[in-house]
């Protein structure tokens, strides 16, 4: 059980904090922007080309393999990235700076890139669960558009929203590949600490640290997924 002490070391706690910040912030950004985008998409007729194309694109983006995602962002805002060059030419500003892309702030930006489409995919169906009869009944009883949203639609969507938020959190927390490609120095998040633990050939006994960290990951992810499932049940009870 001495391995569990490894979890309380300063490096481990920093990594845990980093992971929580990364997952929390990208989940929030992804959830809010994604919900907005999902609303825009769902407001279009079900067979419109734009709607289907956008949903298909979101499906692709949400499945973005870690390596490709990292490359895409290096190509965009990396040291010789397209956007970096454009911003420096047009505004004279240095977008790349001291290489923030390859640290925690960079991870936040890059993770948000796939969190938003993931939110669209997970949350858009919730809008379909809003039966038109509810809106018509509300309107018939005197509700304005705002009243309908405030008293009926938003309360009904909240469990699905929170559930999706948790799913996004778990997704970011467990992600490895993109961070592994972008970050080569330091272990700002737990998965990268695990990488160091199990690939290190210099320090013996590190493998056990890896196990302890993996256990920590399971605990966090399980707690989040249990919360997600509870919210899912609430949603499906209301919107059968």
């Amino acid at each position: 059980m001495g391995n569990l002490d490894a979890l309380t070391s300063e490096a481990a706690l920093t990594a845990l904090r980093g992971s929580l910040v990364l997952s929390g912030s990208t989940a929030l950004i992804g959830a809010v922007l994604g919900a907005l985008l999902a609303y825009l998409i769902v407001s279009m007729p079900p067979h419109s080309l734009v709607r289907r194309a956008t949903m298909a694109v979101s499906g692709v983006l949400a499945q973005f393999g870690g390596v490709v995602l990292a490359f895409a962002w290096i190509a965009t805002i990396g040291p010789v990235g397209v956007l970096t060059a454009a911003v420096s030419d047009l505004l004279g500003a240095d977008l790349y700076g001291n290489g923030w892309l390859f640290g925690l702030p960079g991870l936040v930006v890059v993770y948000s890139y796939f969190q938003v489409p993931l939110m669209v995919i997970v949350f858009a169906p919730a809008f379909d669960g809003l039966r038109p009869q509810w809106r018509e009944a509300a309107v018939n009883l005197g509700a304005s558009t705002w009243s309908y949203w405030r008293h009926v639609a938003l309360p009904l969507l909240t469990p699905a929203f929170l559930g999706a938020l948790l799913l996004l959190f778990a997704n970011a927390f467990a992600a490895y590949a993109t961070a592994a490609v972008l970050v080569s120095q330091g272990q700002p998040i737990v998965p990268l600490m695990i990488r160091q633990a199990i690939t290190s050939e210099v320090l013996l006994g590190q493998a056990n640290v890896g196990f302890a960290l993996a256990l920590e990951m399971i605990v966090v992810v399980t707690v989040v997924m249990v919360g997600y499932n509870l919210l899912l049940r609430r949603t499906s009870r209301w919107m059968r």
Partner: protein
Amino acid sequence: MTQSRGFKVFRAVGLLVFAAYFFVPLLAMLDFSTQVRGSAPGRTWGNWAFMVTDEDLRSSIVASLLLALFTVVLMVALLVPTMVWVRLRVPRARGLIEFLCLLPLTIPALVIVVGITNVYSWVTYLLGDSALVLTFAYVVLVLPYSYRAIDAALSAIDAATLSEAARSLGAGWFTVIVRIIMPNITSGILGAAFIAVALVLGEYVFASLLHFDTLPVAMAALYKSNGPAAMAAALASMILVAVLLVGLTFLSRDRHKQGASS
């Protein structure tokens, strides 16, 4: 409920922003991948050709494609008969199978790798160290997604009624599964296969930490020595995955038409 003009404008702007968000990084990759090395001016497709000319990269591409193929075959052979059988004959086991198949979703791949590093060294000892050994691990990883695709297809066709009708006309169980059920869930099987391929082609966690040379691992390594070529390979794999996933949405649209009769 009609939508106001202001809303439509806002929506168009929002979708345009999303489109930019999607395309800019891809265009950036395209730009990168066609640059000439050594910051010389001009464009070249040489970096793309690298995928064919460079031996290491080529072998990793072949390895990944073969891995995808084997994973799909093993997944279909395992999953389809089991799911059909459970649905038709052992309905009570359905909850258990569903739980098992969705379990890999809740356990991060990284954690699984940490747990099986020891196991895998034993597996490679037995079966050799070609990347194809990853097949077993990958089948487990794609289970949740493939399960959902096939389950949705089975639900849409009311497999129980079809099989009862076939059995009452004299069909044996093998005939029922192969000639009655499977032809009707092709779109679901294809969907499961497409997702499996997409996942395998992008999988990095297992491959890199268990030291196998698949395409994503090779790309990451290549970046250090030849950035543009790595970009080309990445973009190519992304396009392939995109084509598969878009094909998937068209498949599920057809399935909705089929299932509508029930």
